[in-house]
């Protein structure tokens, strides 16, 4: 039974690769009131979206590496967004969290789960590296874990030795193929609306 499912997924991914994904242009405010449309952009734009949570210990432990990925993305000319998925979060809470964890990228709260549903995010932290095709279409170049700090929930490495997202950003910025485009993310579930 497993083989047909995998075949169907491959067909679906291949179709996505040809046609790209299309998203409604979700407009979301950050805690400073600035409006962002993460999935809208010019053809060729690199965009990173990382779903996170203010109190997920796994997402928080990766905050310094997420910040490094953010800086490298913007240095490469791309855009980087940290997206909180818990609807009850206030701007004050996300601002405090960003200050405590020294996060400098735009931080937005996806209260209606528009981005969560569009990208089909399930976990925090969960990273998406996108290449815009224009007109709201994009390709997913990398999806999954930020790094290998956690081998699974409850199994934490002492140190990060593989920086999956940062490596993917570097490869994409250099026009190189991303060796592994999908890594299982481990973390806290997003409870959907």
């Amino acid at each position, binding site marked *: 039974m497993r083989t047909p499912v995998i075949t169907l997924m491959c067909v679906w991914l291949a179709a996505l690769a040809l046609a790209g994904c299309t998203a409604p242009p979700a407009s979301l405010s950050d805690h400073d009131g600035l409006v962002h449309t993460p999935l809208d952009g010019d053809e060729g734009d690199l965009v990173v979206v990382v779903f996170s949570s203010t109190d997920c210990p796994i997402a928080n432990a990766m905050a310094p590496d997420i910040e490094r990925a953010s800086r490298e993305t913007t240095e490469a000319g791309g855009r980087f967004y940290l997206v909180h998925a818990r609807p009850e979060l206030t701007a004050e809470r996300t601002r405090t969290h960003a200050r405590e964890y020294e996060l400098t990228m735009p931080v937005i709260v996806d209260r209606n789960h528009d981005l969560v549903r569009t990208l089909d995010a399930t976990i925090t932290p969960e990273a998406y590296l996108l290449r815009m095709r224009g007109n709201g279409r994009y390709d997913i170049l990398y999806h999954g874990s930020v790094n290998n700090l956690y081998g699974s929930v409850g199994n934490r490495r002492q140190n990060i030795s593989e920086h999956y997202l940062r490596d993917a950003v570097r490869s994409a910025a250099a026009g190189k193929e991303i060796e592994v485009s999908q890594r299982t993310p481990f973390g*806290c579930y997003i409870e959907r609306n």
Partner: protein
Amino acid sequence: MHAILFCLLASTTNAADTWSDVSPIVSRHCSTCHHDAGSGPFPLLSHSDLAGRRRFIAEILRRKLMPPWLPGGDSPPLHDDRTMPKTDRTRLIAWLDAGAPTAEGTEPVAITPPITPSFPAGTFTVPLDEPFVIPPETIENEHRFHQDTWCFVIPLDNEDPLRVRGIGWKTAAPQSVHTVTLVADDRGRGRKRDEVDPRVGFERDGDLDRDISGSLGGVGIGLDRMLLPPGFHWSIPAHSDLVAEVKYRPLGRALPLGDQAYLVPADDVASREVIAVVTGVNRLKVPAGEKEHEAEDRFTLPAAFDVIAVIPRARNECRSMRLSANLPDGTQRTLLDIPDWDAHFRRPYLFKSIQSLPAGTILVSRFIIDNTDGNPRNPYDPPEDLRIGRRTGVAGFTLLGAGSDAAASNLLLKTSQRVMDRRGSQTRPSRTPIPSPKAP
């Protein structure tokens, strides 16, 4: 047959459970650490605290990652046992899977945060005055990612020896600091290490020559004190420092440490002084890729030993450990069995009843090391050949207890230290022998 099965299931799960039914379970097993000032990363006090994380919590419970309690197998009864009964676990998971329902027409009542009991009267507090900040991430240290550990010297300025029946530690970073072990240092050994390290506190473990880190006991996650049973005390020589070995887990942000140590004076003049007997493996040689390397050590007790507590220690490559006692009458007794070692959740384990081991008992400590990349806690990626030696042990058990009298305790201590010295091929100054009580 089906009817029996149904009855069995019905007795352990109840699909109609609501928040008011399961909140006592949450209060008992989760809220003790998961409150605003606790060691848990988020509070678990209100219905929404759980409902907003129901799949995550259900997975953690299913995989038995929480509540954290390492001993299993046939370990003897231990104080503060956090084992969650199967019925509680099953009911809580079923309630979460059912969408965390509340009773119709009622407002879910939040659990009252637990009140940490105060220390006994007469306890004195010693602050850690050094401005140490826990870094956001692991720093590459002397032991190369072994464990995040930092040590501090806390002067006691005691003119006279102290008799202590309890120790405690309150941390300003309870979610990060997971183990603190203490050594009494009357020779300035900690100060010397502190002086040569230009940073706040000093790196390396808290072993001081023959005094193993934890020879005064320690605390662990959710455990802010260690109180000895009646009839026992620790002795702290005059003009001592406390050397604290603080193990922490970086949380992604800088956390200032503003901690305090507590000492609970002993008032029982007839109590016995607690000594630390160490048994374990001093050398490990495990090739990269070896999945089940077994390391074993045997230590024969030269005198009867009343053991009150045991503190395990091992590297992150260790998967499981077991300490057993082969008694002279041919029987075997398990003292501690940890089937899934996770250094993060280690703590001192106090036996509910004293484990009296006669002279001639062989302590057998056994460790399984997994040096493959399939071990997610292996700090090296890809795995490296593990070749390590350490006089005070690279994986071991520190047994706290006392001989029947001062002479027996001194013999136990001397033999344990001689074994360590022989393995380490070096001799260090002996600690002051325990004085025998003066004749009336």
